[in-house]
């Protein structure tokens, strides 16, 4: 599902963000990518979303070879990837419902399909009562659920969560991870990028530890 083959990323100016990173994440896996700031987590995400291109190596995601993908095709790659950010990135002038519907409207989904799917997804993340509420009236955890609903609405093959618990208090953080695990149980591959080792320790899931742009440890390989 996600394949990094000897991926190196060097930014102009000589900063080596990723150095010979190599791992495979299979369909249906739940994986933490753990690292301090500067370990290369953001670069990893940018490469997966094809905001940046690799300097060396090959990335394959959901049958797209990111080295060869055409610019026109990038939006279709991104529809396979649901992304959740630390700062939620909701549109403040839209209700929870509108924020989720927005993601469908701008990707050519019919109005009927939107009316059918948005309530279903909001229910899935436990926000069916808050659909007409604006983001500022929601707690951090609830805002992150809206963002998660938006990421799920295209029925993506993979959910990428970038520090999803960074702006949420610890108790609610566990709920978000639980929700991600629930989504994983329904068949979606989930990748959680985080620096929070306490979260990682709490859930015994495969963890790829990044340090200074290299894979320091991959618990899957360790188990084998």
């Amino acid at each position: 599902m996600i394949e990094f083959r000897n991926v190196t990323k060097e930014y102009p100016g000589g900063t080596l963000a990723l150095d010979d990173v190599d791992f495979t994440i299979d369909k249906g896996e739940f994986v933490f990518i753990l690292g301090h700031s500067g370990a290369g987590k953001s670069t990893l995400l940018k490469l997966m979303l094809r905001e940046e291109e690799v300097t060396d190596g090959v990335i394959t995601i959901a049958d797209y070879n990111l080295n060869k993908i055409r610019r026109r095709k990038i939006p279709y790659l991104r529809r396979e990837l649901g992304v959740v950010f630390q700062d939620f990135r909701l549109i403040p002038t839209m209700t929870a419902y509108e924020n989720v519907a927005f993601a469908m409207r701008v990707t050519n989904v019919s109005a009927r399909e939107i009316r059918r799917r948005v309530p279903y997804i909001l229910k899935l993340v436990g926000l069916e009562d808050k659909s007409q509420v604006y983001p500022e009236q929601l707690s951090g955890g609830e805002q992150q659920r809206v963002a998660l609903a938006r990421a799920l609405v295209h029925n993506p093959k993979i959910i990428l969560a970038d520090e999803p618990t960074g702006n949420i208090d610890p108790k609610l953080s566990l709920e978000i991870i639980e929700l991600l695990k629930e989504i994983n149980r329904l068949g979606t591959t989930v990748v959680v990028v985080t620096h929070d080792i306490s979260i990682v320790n709490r859930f015994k899931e495969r963890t790829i530890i990044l340090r200074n742009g290299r894979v320091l440890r991959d618990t899957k390989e360790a188990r084998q």
Partner: protein
Amino acid sequence: MRGSSFGYLVRQGIINTWINRMMSAASIGILTACMIIVGGSGLLAVNIRDIFRSIEEKNELVVFLKDEADEAAIADLGDRIETLDHISSYYFVSKADALEEQKEFMGDKGYLLNGLEDDNPLPASYRIKVDSLEHLNYVVDELKYYNGVETVSAPTDLARTLTGVEKTFLILGSIIIGILIVSSAVVISNTIRLTLYARRREIMIMKYVGATDSFIRLPFVVEGITIGVVSALLAFGVLSLIYESLGTMFSGSGISWLTGVSSSLIPFSKLWKAVLGSFLGFGIVLGAFGSGTSIRRYLRV
């Protein structure tokens, strides 16, 4: 693209224009002013052309012949005129014809010329029409020194002035219009850039959820076109008012030459379609172009 999606994006574009209404109003104002100036110059040019054309229809030159020119010389000159370029028509007026013409011109005093038939002081002539004022001087120069020619009379100074005026007008007009078009495009593009800035968050989200470039671009192009169309309609309204009221002002002024000008103005009923059409075309193209250029930078990622 689905109809409902298209409708949604178009609505977003119009909403953008409203949310950003201060800048929209500013750019509509500037664009309207540009269009009025360009359109005004256009109307002036059309009218001047019209006047020129009516003058050009009188672009007759007269080749007066020496009395001693015999029939052979006259025929020879006729052949020469026949082969000359830029001549639309010509005819010969004999001494006798010239006298008849003069008598007619003098009306009831024509009898005064009676008895001159045998000692006719009027010269024979060729009356020539040239196809355009530009070529008048060329024809005059060709015929002036020809055998049997006494003088050539033609409005050459007028021709020179008018062609000069027309050319200067054309060059200056193109420069001014060019500058106005460029500045209008810049103004629109700046307005759209403000909207882009205000909506950068939404654009970023659109990209992460996999919206295609054309989906992201469409509302902004719609915003540009909305500005262009509103400006075109405003400019059209203002310009038609100016044109009509100038006409009535001139004709009612009591100053004879102004009244003359007003009567030769092309009526607006004959021009409005062209004016409205070119304004709308101008507005739509500039609006689309202005927004297209400013959004390109935001689509890279």
